């Protein structure tokens, strides 16, 4: 669906990107300065790569060898910019319909549908200057959707928003990613957003793409080190809501062979759900502990231990079909005699799994 293999140069940054994605939501993840915006600008046609190929849905947008380089306006890529870039002299309505009247795009998606999806009805006759940051981004997303795109690029749409505004817009993004029906390339430096929204993850680090693949698989990899962000690193679990214990306000999630209890999220039984368990919130025990407040105690097997030079060790444990990542001290690894294949009890505090770490399963 999306096949990128390019080399380029933007200022001092040499960019070499190679990844494939089978549609759905693909996240391009990397720290500031890693080249995320340069890469999306090349895909969008705003910057010309030096060599390589870009293919979307079977259409070649760029091929240096065959001398193909479609112009920006011919690529049919909906581009949601970090700074929204709404046209300040037009109403929200004219912004939304711009692709139709100025770009001559025939839209398969109806205006009503997009307005509905993003909650834009009350904004239609307003000017961009009167909108809040979150509203602007929603309009920008709607405008891109109405340009009949074959790919939607979202370049850190939440980066300029505060946490409250982010929480306002995230539910819309959940719906968009689930319902858009077109591939989305979602650019972010927040592992939370990536884990929440995407199926495929592409890691970009210093202009290189060291790894790409299914998001759960990549988040469980310990060899990517700082590229995935050490502090926020964690594994992704997918499960189904069993029931909610209203007396204690806990929701029970079946993760395949084991149950996790998390604070009540008001989800209906049977609903699929995705949880991100940060490595630093996970502890390991060699025997079943007694007199402990931690509610989630899962039987697991150590799959790998990677000790780093500092005080930390990253442990991957198999729990049923899924993988949980734990960060503990190297000292504990030594004291407990942890080794690959050893049975352990994986301990996760329920309260560590807050609202930001969970989301409906995308797609």
């Amino acid at each position: 669906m999306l096949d990128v293999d390019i080399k380029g140069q933007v200022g001092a940054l040499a960019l070499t990107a190679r990844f494939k994605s089978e549609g759905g939501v693909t996240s391009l993840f990397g720290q500031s300065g890693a080249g995320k915006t340069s890469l999306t600008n090349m895909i969008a046609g705003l910057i010309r790569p030096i060599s390589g190929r870009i293919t979307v849905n079977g259409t070649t947008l760029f091929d240096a060898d065959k001398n193909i380089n479609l112009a920006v306006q011919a690529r049919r890529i909906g581009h949601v910019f970090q700074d929204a870039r709404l046209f300040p002299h037009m109403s929200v309505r004219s912004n939304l319909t711009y692709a139709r009247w100025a770009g001559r795009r025939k839209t398969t998606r109806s205006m009503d549908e997009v307005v509905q999806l993003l909650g834009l009805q009350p904004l239609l006759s307003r000017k961009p200057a009167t909108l809040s940051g979150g509203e602007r981004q929603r309009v920008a997303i709607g405008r891109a959707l109405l340009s009949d795109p074959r790919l939607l690029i979202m370049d850190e749409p939440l980066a300029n928003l505060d946490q409250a505004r982010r929480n306002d817009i995230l539910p819309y993004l959940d719906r968009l990613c689930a319902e858009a029906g077109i591939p989305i390339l979602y650019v972010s430096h927040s592992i939370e957003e990536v884990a929440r929204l995407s199926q495929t993850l592409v890691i970009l680090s210093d202009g290189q793409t060291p790894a790409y693949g299914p998001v759960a698989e990549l988040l469980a990899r310990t060899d990517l080190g700082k590229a995935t962000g050490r502090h926020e690193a964690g594994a992704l679990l997918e499960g189904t809501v069993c029931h909610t214990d209203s007396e204690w306000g806990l929701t029970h999630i079946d993760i395949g062979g084991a149950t996790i209890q998390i604070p009540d999220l008001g989800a209906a039984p049977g609903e699929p759900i995705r949880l991100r368990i940060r490595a630093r919130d996970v502890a390991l025990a060699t025997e079943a502990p007694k007199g402990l407040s931690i509610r989630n105690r899962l039987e697991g097997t150590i799959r790998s231990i990677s000790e780093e030079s500092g005080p930390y060790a990253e442990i991957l444990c198999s729990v049923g079909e899924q993988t949980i990542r734990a960060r503990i001290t190297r000292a504990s690894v030594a004291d407990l005699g942890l080794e690959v294949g050893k049975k352990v009890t994986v301990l996760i505090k329920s309260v560590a799994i807050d609202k930001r770490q969970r989301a409906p399963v995308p797609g």
Partner: protein
Amino acid sequence: MDFLTLQPAEWQALLLTLRVAAAALLVALPLAVMVAYGLARYRFPGHGVVNALVHLPLVLPPVVTGYVLLLAFGRNGPVGSVLRETFGITFAFNWTGAALAAGVMAFPLMVRPIRLSFEAVDPKLEDAARSLGALRLVSFLTVTLPLALPGILGGAILGFAKAMGEFGATITFVSNIPGETRTLALALYTATQSPSGDVAAFRLTIIATIVAFGALIASELLARRLRKRLGGADA
């Protein structure tokens, strides 16, 4: 009451001035918009030379500009003779020549504010427009041009004012012919050269002031409406 009615010669000078200034603006403004956009958005070899050429009439003595025009666009000048033979257009000693001189003199005054207003429009908005399918020209016409309109209006007013008052280049290039090239400024000059011309000069001064004042007020009203349409919240 006689004092308030315009005499035929005054009418003639006033109408001629307006015609010359309007013609100068009509031809020079689109050209100024293009040159200003080019200078604002593109870095090309010779950028500095083009910029200097545009500003030359501003720093040269107007008589020099008029003389250069006379050499180039005169009946036997290299440009003038070609234009006359192929298109039948003559500039020399003709009101169109006055308009040409006024346009050339007004050109730098128009380019400057228009260029500044183009530079104030974020070029990334055009990227956004193109990502939505708009061709380069369409994105310019629908996004950049309307956003730069207040600056273009400012340039147009400045240019119109300069064209109305142009003197040195005009008299050098097309001389001072009543009904053909004698604009208000030239008529005023003629009056001051006559021993009995004080009253005439005074009347012409008042006419020129009223026209200029009216144009300023009209443009201010227009600018206010434009800002309101473009600005959104703050207007």
